[in-house]
């Protein structure tokens, strides 16, 4: 699956986009975030406080229990500040 990072999540992880292949038991947004935390110090720092991390799955807002599947486009970003 593809993971995209925006705003300060991009700065902290050091990547804007990456292909990841988490183990098969990673089937939810919450499990994916937990697994991504272990992918390096930048990821651990970026995902330390999940109350300020929003998640979209295939460009729709997602909750922790929502499913993630191979081939999905996952995006991680801070609360939005447009307008």
């Amino acid at each position, binding site marked *: 699956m593809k993971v*995209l990072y*925006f*705003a*300060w999540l991009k700065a902290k992880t050091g990547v804007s986009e990456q292909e990841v292949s988490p183990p098969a038991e990673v089937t939810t947004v919450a499990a994916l975030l937990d697994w991504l935390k272990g992918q390096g110090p930048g990821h651990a720092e970026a995902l330390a406080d999940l109350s300020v991390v929003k998640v*979209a799955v295939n*460009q*729709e807002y997602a909750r922790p229990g929502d499913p993630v599947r191979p081939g999905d486009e996952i*995006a991680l*970003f*801070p*609360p*939005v*500040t*447009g*307008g």
Partner: protein
Amino acid sequence: MAIRVQLEDFDVGAELEALSAGNHRIGGVASFVGLVRDLAEGEAVAAMTLEHYPGMTEKQLAKIEAEARARWPLEDCLIVHRYGRLEPGERIVLVITASAHRQAALESCQFLIDWLKTQAPFWKLEEGPEGSHWVEARASDDAAAARWAEPADAKPDAAE
């Protein structure tokens, strides 16, 4: 009905004119223009850079627009949102709504800008004297959007 996400500026007068031209069912047009300020949270702002999530931005704006159309009898509406680096005084966003009557136009315009601020995936990086920092979401923006959580109970001024 249209949504545009673009780098370049827009012409408010031309957009207002284009939206209502030829549609004589329209009796009221409301608009909101958001501008970059030179001061935020008491700090000088030299410029801001708007980042967005191409694809999801358009999708979310389309959903917000569909919600407005479901709640109010709109003849037309337009959302234009810029991204990239903008300096104080520059236009960021334009919302125009048109309806037979003023109440639907005015209410839906406010609804669209309130919801857009909390739903559309944009982020602002402000440049100030102390360097750059990402603007944090404000609780007051969430509260403004939450006011519209329930469908508007009064929908007078039906289009006909």
